[in-house]
């Protein structure tokens, strides 16, 4: 079955089998390497992508279900090799250790800054809850998101 997706603003077409997941297609057919496989049962959130403005775990979505949708991955956040404010906040606050979960957290943080600028710490935590960091560096990740939100509220990049 032929599906067409808009991935980070670029129209992509792929021939997929019905049993292929969105994760499989993005990573192995379209070469989007920030989308990673973790638990594959929806627990860890490492495969998170934004589908039509919603955070989705791509290991639990069939590629065919995503036909016609607009997908954003971490590759779509930077412009001309310049990191987005959210990415810079992660660097600034050391919101990463081994880096495996980082794309998922950055993408989740991006969604938070786009959709819930005035969120309380508790609300932020409820969203971040969906992604697991096995290095357990959550403190720095939460700090990064808070910094990104602060920049956002104070008007754009530092």
């Amino acid at each position, binding site marked *: *079955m032929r599906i067409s997706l808009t991935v980070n603003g670029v129209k992509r077409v792929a021939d997929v*089998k*019905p*049993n*292929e*997941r969105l*994760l*499989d297609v993005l*990573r*192995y057919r379209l070469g989007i390497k920030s989308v990673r*496989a973790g638990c*594959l*049962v*929806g627990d860890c*959130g490492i495969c*998170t992508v934004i589908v039509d403005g*919603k*955070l*989705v*775990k791509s*290991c*639990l*979505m*069939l590629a*065919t*279900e995503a036909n016609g949708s607009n997908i954003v991955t971490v590759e779509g956040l930077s412009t001309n090799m310049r990191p987005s404010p959210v990415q810079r906040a992660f660097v600034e606050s050391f919101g990463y250790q081994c880096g495996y979960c980082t794309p998922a957290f950055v993408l*989740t943080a991006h969604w938070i800054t786009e959709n819930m600028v005035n969120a309380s710490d508790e609300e932020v935590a*409820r*969203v971040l*809850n*969906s*992604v697991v960091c096995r290095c357990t560096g959550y403190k720095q990740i939460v700090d990064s998101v808070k910094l990104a939100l602060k920049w956002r509220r104070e008007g754009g990049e530092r």
Partner: protein
Amino acid sequence: MSLILRTTLPDFDYLSPSSLDELLALKAKYGERAAVIAGGTVLLNLMRLGFRYDYVIDIKGVRELSAIEYREGRGLVIGAAATLKDLENNEFVREKYGVLWDAVRQIGDFHLRNRATIGGNICNPTLQADTIAPLAVLGASIEVSSMRGSRRVAIWELVKEGGGLLLDPDEILTRIYIPELPKGSRGAYFKVWWIAGIAALAANIDNPRERIVRVAYSFAPSQELVEGVEKIFRQEKPLKVLIGDAINYIKTSITPPSDARASREYREHLVEFGTAYLLRKLLGVEV
């Protein structure tokens, strides 16, 4: 690596009907050979565990099944493919059907609720169906449709002993109906992991003769609604005494299961503690 990942779901044909008639015709044609996919958060895992279907029918193409509609005086109608996030963000669900809202936001996580649907939560036979107990205390009924027509029954009548719904192979859960509740009704859901979920609803608290107090339990995957509780709370005694009476009655009338996740004794403890906590909170009784 890629090979392993790509072969983890068995082969199937993907069907995406765009109208209810088309959907029901496909389900009638393929019956148990076809699985219905809404959010897919459970189905994909089941297929990885070895469940095989020749066809996977996507019901999200049938737009009307994703709607959530509230009508003053008539209540709430929820399409089976409405996502849990839609329910969480719905002001009527939050304000008028608090027990359901409270349960929904404790299911899965933020990302998963963008996909997971209420119909899937009711129908899926493996995990704790956290929406069933709240729907039971709310007095909800469900609409089940097939080519033969649709029927509307109390949700409780279709819940299977081990979880899941008693549906014929050609039937699909299409809508959930929740009646309008008395003004000022309150509800809450108490959940401990996949061990126990307790739904409680209270309305007309100040008037014993019209007082409504209902509780239902979910012990993944079995569900229990305790019918006699409402009668206990119709008595003219202090609420604190009635809560004690109700808990004693509940303890004798349900038998939680024992399994790998928790022993029966521990679940009995949770029932006693959680029920007391919820009823005190909803009825405004100090410890």
